[in-house]
């Protein structure tokens, strides 16, 4: 499936990243508590906390990458308005703008999810 910023799938891709991050974090947390993984520690924290943070970093990078691409496409489209293919440029500015801002919302939402990982123990 192509995920360009001018396709519906590409526009919602950053939110899909948020959803995947959320589901995986919640599942790993559940698995960790059921199997006692939180007892393994690394650098003062449960190893599973590090894993969750690593996952968060990867998800943030993914959502941000979509955002940067959307932002670039938006600027490109904006530059095209006023030229010969103005209608097309306006359409592309709309789709790219949505992709870019949704990425921003996804980044904020992923950070929201990550805050409790930093603040709380995994299984209390």
């Amino acid at each position, binding site marked *: 499936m192509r995920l360009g910023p001018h396709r519906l799938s590409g526009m919602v891709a950053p939110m899909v990243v948020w959803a995947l991050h959320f589901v995986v974090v919640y599942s790993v947390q*559940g698995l960790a508590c059921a199997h006692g993984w939180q007892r393994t520690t690394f650098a003062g924290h449960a190893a599973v906390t590090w894993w969750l943070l690593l996952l968060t970093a990867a998800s943030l990078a993914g959502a941000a990458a979509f955002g940067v691409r959307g932002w670039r496409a938006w600027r490109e489209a904006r530059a095209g308005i006023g030229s010969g293919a103005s209608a097309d440029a306006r359409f592309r500015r709309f789709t790219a703008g949505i992709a870019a801002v949704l990425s921003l919302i996804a980044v904020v939402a992923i950070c929201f999810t990550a805050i409790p990982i930093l603040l709380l123990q995994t299984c209390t």
Partner: protein
Amino acid sequence: MSTAPASLDAGVHEARLRELDEVWGTKPGLRGQLTAVNHTTVGLRFIVTGFAFMLVGGLLSMFIRLQLAWFDSEVLDPQRYAEFVTMHGTTMMFLFAVPIMEGFAIYLIPKMLGARDLPFPRLSAFGYWCYLFGGLFLYSSFLFDAVPDAGWFMYVPLSDATWSPGLNADFWLIGVTFAEVAAVVAAVEMIVAILITRAPGMDLRRIPLFAWAMLVTAFMIAFGFPPLILASILLEIQRAFDFAFFEVARGGDPLLWQHLFWLFGHPEVYIIFLPAAGVVSMIIPTFARRPIVGYSWIVLAQVAVGFLSFGLWVHHMFAVGIPLLALALFSAASMAVAIPMGIQVFAWIATLWSGRPWLRVPMLYLVGFFFVFVLGGLTGVMLAMMPFNWQVHDTHFVVAHLHYVLIGGLMFPLFAGLYYWLPLASGRTPSETLSRTAFWLVFIGFNLAFLPMHLTGMLGMPRRVYTYSEEMGVHWLNLLSTAAGFVLAIGIVAILVDVALSFRHGPRTARNPWNGGTLEWAIPFPVPLYNFASVPVVGDRDPLWQRPEIADASARADGMLGEVRDGQREILCTGLLSGEPEQVVRISNSTWLPLLAALSLAALLTCFIAKAYAVAAVMLVPLLGLLGAWAWTSGHRHAPTHLDVTADLRLPTQYAARNAPGWWALVVSLLIDGSLFASLVFSYFYLWLGADAWPPAGIATGSWGPQLLALGVLGVAAGAVQFAMRAVRRDARATAITAWLLAAVAGLAFVAVHGWALWVPVGPPQAHAYASVVWTLAGFHAVHVLVAVLFATFLAARVHRGYASAARPLDARVAAGLWRYTVGQGLVAWAVVHLFPRFA
């Protein structure tokens, strides 16, 4: 009736309009009503039925309020109280809130998109009958003194066979699931309609915001409803056949029900709210008399809400003993969802701020909406905080919050929408005095009824309990709530009377009385059942403001699809992103099939609840027969592959087009089915997580031989389908027929072999939750294989009779798509059932 255009002779023009009326019209009399499938009729039926159920649900709440009016009331005994609370919640959520918005969407979406009808008229008619029969089925429990009484959330173990031995819970599980069919088919209908039946020129950034809201909502239904449908099926199987999903003694887990229920239940709140927000986004520009501010922002906020609302379900389960971190994840998401909600509210305020607001009755309701909904949202954020939540959990504070959200977020916009679009349906406006009085009754009654509940809740008054103690000191507040509740009820009755009266006595109005900018206002009154004599072409977000002449142009029969051919109803489909014309789609005329199919389903479910399982199985025959007739009449041996839209535009029909609605319907249906399957796989792993041993003692994983054989047979079926598809594309009829039949035989063989491969090691499904869930997974997949087998046989017949061919490959593409999905699902199910326990 419009004047004849210069390009057409007046007589020809009149004849064209007459022919359009004839082909799209409903036949006279009862027969015509029962066979009607067009969206205007079906939509109005949903709306009227929805309000009828609202009145019944409201009546129940009056009894509840009477019982709670004083601490020692004896209006309802505890059993009746539990029944009325359950039925009130169930009715309002499943038989009012969701269906009424579907009704608005079914009625309005094609008109807003510049389409003549929805792409699958029979499906919406079928959905309506399922909704009506499901609702009546649920209420028939009063006749048998078996009214559901376990709460609208039906928590186990309260609702299992031990604690609810009667039929009460069965009426709920079967009735609600039956009615939910309507929501699911409406989701398919809406997604396909909004993606590909928009007027030419209506690209993504010109879609009316109500349609955007419905698109997001429909996707949310596609992912949100399956968990509840699955949970209902599992619980019904457990009650009927003694399976063990939720029973702790046999390895089950009651919390699984709560997860599945709230996986549906929280998105449900937004499934109800988003369309209402869409209504708000349509009304505000009209009454601010300027285009909406921040269109793109509203669209992206709707999409973001659609996603984020799925990360909230555990906040209904804060008090069940889940680890803190897990709770905090949901608490965080509950707060994050306030961001996109806020974006929408600010866009609305900005539009009003920069416009010239006109305070007519629909706007008055929106003012009420802002006030009530914002309060409900604020208590929502309070409830998202765990420490606070624990204090007020299961108290009337939550009752106050949810009514502020639902009445504020749904009812106020709904009444605004009702008054806004009423002139479209009635050609008249309601009485300004009566409608304003009704508004104030509703607004004051509502706030006085529910505001005190915040206090009674914080003082500790529990919800769902038929009484409270005098020492709590909340009886005066409760008396106030009850009195105000009756004021609210009078207000709502006044609204309905006002609306009913306006159909007869309201002042007549010209077309577009509010000067709205979207296409539904281009339609003349009385609304012709084909909506537009010529499909309109749009070049703006508010087409009527940009080019008012579009109204007259679309009422003339000299444009796109202005001429009726072969007595067929034709709609135009356009590109998903661009809105460029792509294909002509022929849709169904009036037919008995939806009603008969829904009746057979009702008969089947009635036999099931009566425990006449053999008769229920026999009832599958007429149901499958009718669905077969439905599928068979979806095409024609001599159906054209291309048709003229105008003199210089010729397009493929759906039988030949790549983006055919049927193909999209398959994709969306499989998405919904995939979500159902994913919920089942989730249940499997959830049960595994809580189990000591997997499989438990006494159950084996079995030997590889039969399991691999089953997989091999499924592979043969997959190969045969690929081969059949290639043969259809080459027009090699004999080969195609043989290959489809081979796929069917291989499918049947798979079901037999796999059943045997499981029976030997696993034994009966009642033994343990492991056996229950494994058999259910295998059975779920087997049902899919059997459906695919029917499709393969159907295709063999279709190819034989010349319906499916290289020129008209749609049928074959759909069948092959279903097979590929079924095989893929089989691989996952096989790996879960046979590989996972070996390596877990």
